[in-house]
């Protein structure tokens, strides 16, 4: 079976820096931390972390009320990022509603905030009489994908992958496979999440959240750094418009890059702990899918969330495949861990690095943990032309994903 080539023609970002890919890149290239102290987190019993990176500077009312009423924050982020990706790609209303354009968009869970509000009210008298009609549409597992499809009129396939921190990467990968097989011409793909104290508590509970920099939030998280102390939870949405090469050529739109390969796998050794072999296998499978050798990869955008186990395991897996020379960085130091959005948001940032010829380093990486393998860890913005990169996303639940992206050439 002849598979179709798949290219990226649009990107949309709603990040802790605000809305827009340029806004994202300005923050990243300036080395500006988007992490802040949120004193209200002190009200949560047992929660030790007080830092997060939240989205600001957007106006939800840009989305009509009837579309917005079934949206929590994550769907609002996803809708805006989708609108921007579609605009960049020049997708017309006819194409959107043709049935040949689908959506693959996921979140870690449905809205925790809405779920909390529902049950807070329910538990007062065990009555559901006050439950508004649109509550359920905000807490479905496929809320983001459905809300975006409804708001934009998408009538093709709808997927809502949910694999925690691997979600955004998987969503792009599954969209890529659908297009490669010819099932759809175009797919809007990515991930979105909204911050809730319970998300931070999930990590804090297993001693994987950053708790030691509450008074100096810009100094955390610290991927690969000796003094790192865990994840900082964040929110946002990253969405790409991908399509078959035939479709992009026929539409005559600029091609930003090509998706070379994708791999995702289950690691049944542990639901919580990362594993070097599984990470290595995932990256090797993605390279194989892309038909590229390790020596042909120019940059690796690591998952590296600043947990003790995750950073060490990923550095070892990267080292085994790519050695010590390939530049590696994690963007979690800048904007925390945007959860389901991280794979797609960081892929978009990496794409921009490729087009701008400037690699973003790992913020807060001052002294590499000796337990991490020796790699070419970026500490400063580096002017380097790259033609290929690997984006990793490794998740709770034993779900690993890697995507290989390359500069588009007509050969």
């Amino acid at each position, binding site marked *: 079976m002849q598979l179709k080539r798949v290219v990226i023609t649009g990107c949309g970002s709603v990040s802790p820096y605000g809305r827009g890919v340029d806004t994202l890149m300005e923050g990243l290239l300036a080395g500006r931390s988007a992490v802040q102290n949120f004193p209200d987190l002190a009200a949560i019993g047992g929660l030790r972390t007080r830092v997060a990176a939240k989205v600001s500077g957007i106006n939800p*009312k840009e989305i009509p*009320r009837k579309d917005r*009423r079934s949206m929590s924050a994550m769907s609002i982020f996803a809708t805006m990022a989708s609108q921007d990706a579609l605009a960049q790609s020049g997708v017309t209303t006819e194409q959107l509603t043709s049935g040949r354009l689908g959506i693959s968009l996921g979140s870690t869970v449905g809205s925790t905030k809405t779920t909390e509000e529902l049950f807070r009210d329910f538990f007062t008298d065990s009555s559901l*009489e006050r439950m*508004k*009609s*649109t509550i359920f549409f905000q807490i479905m597992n496929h809320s983001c994908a459905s809300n975006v499809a409804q708001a934009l009129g998408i009538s093709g396939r709808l997927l809502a992958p949910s694999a925690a921190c691997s979600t955004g990467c998987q969503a792009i990968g599954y969209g890529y496979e659908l297009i490669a097989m010819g099932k759809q011409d175009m797919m809007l793909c990515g991930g979105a999440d909204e911050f809730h104290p319970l998300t931070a508590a999930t990590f804090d509970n297993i001693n994987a959240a950053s708790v030691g920099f509450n008074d100096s939030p810009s100094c955390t998280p610290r991927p690969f750094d000796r003094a790192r102390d865990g994840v900082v939870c964040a929110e946002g949405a990253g969405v790409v418009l991908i399509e078959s090469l035939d479709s992009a050529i026929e539409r005559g739109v600029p091609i930003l890059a090509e998706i070379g390969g994708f791999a995702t796998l289950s690691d049944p050794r542990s639901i919580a702990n990362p594993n070097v072999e599984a990470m290595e296998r995932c990256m090797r499978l993605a390279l194989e899918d892309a038909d590229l050798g390790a020596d042909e990869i120019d940059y690796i955008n690591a998952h590296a969330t600043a947990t003790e186990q995750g950073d060490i395991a990923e550095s070892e897996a990267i080292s085994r495949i790519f050695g010590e020379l390939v530049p590696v960085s994690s963007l979690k130091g800048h904007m925390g861990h945007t959860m389901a959005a991280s794979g797609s948001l960081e892929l978009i940032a990496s794409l921009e690095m490729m087009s701008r010829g400037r690699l973003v380093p790992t913020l807060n990486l001052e002294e590499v943990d000796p337990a991490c393998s020796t790699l070419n860890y970026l500490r400063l913005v580096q002017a380097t032309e790259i033609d290929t990169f690997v984006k990793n996303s490794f998740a709770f639940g034993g779900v690993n994903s890697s995507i290989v992206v390359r500069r588009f050439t007509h050969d």
Partner: protein
Amino acid sequence: MTEQQIIDLINSSLVEEFELDPASMSPDANIYEDLGLDSLDTVDMVIVLEGAFKFKIREEEEIREIRTLGDIYRFVNGKSHQIKRK
């Protein structure tokens, strides 16, 4: 509560819930055609009115006949009198 107070509370509750233009809140405004509400909104409208007036109206047959804001004013006014009489 006077009749005008009832109208004001209905208007302010619906304006807030459905992001309506206060200038459009006239008794002859059709809630579907003029105010743009739909079936999901009418479910929420009942919940909003129940919250504002502290009564239960969901099972009332009369609700199904409501078409205009004036119908709502009359319905709520009548319901308030009923409660007062009890």
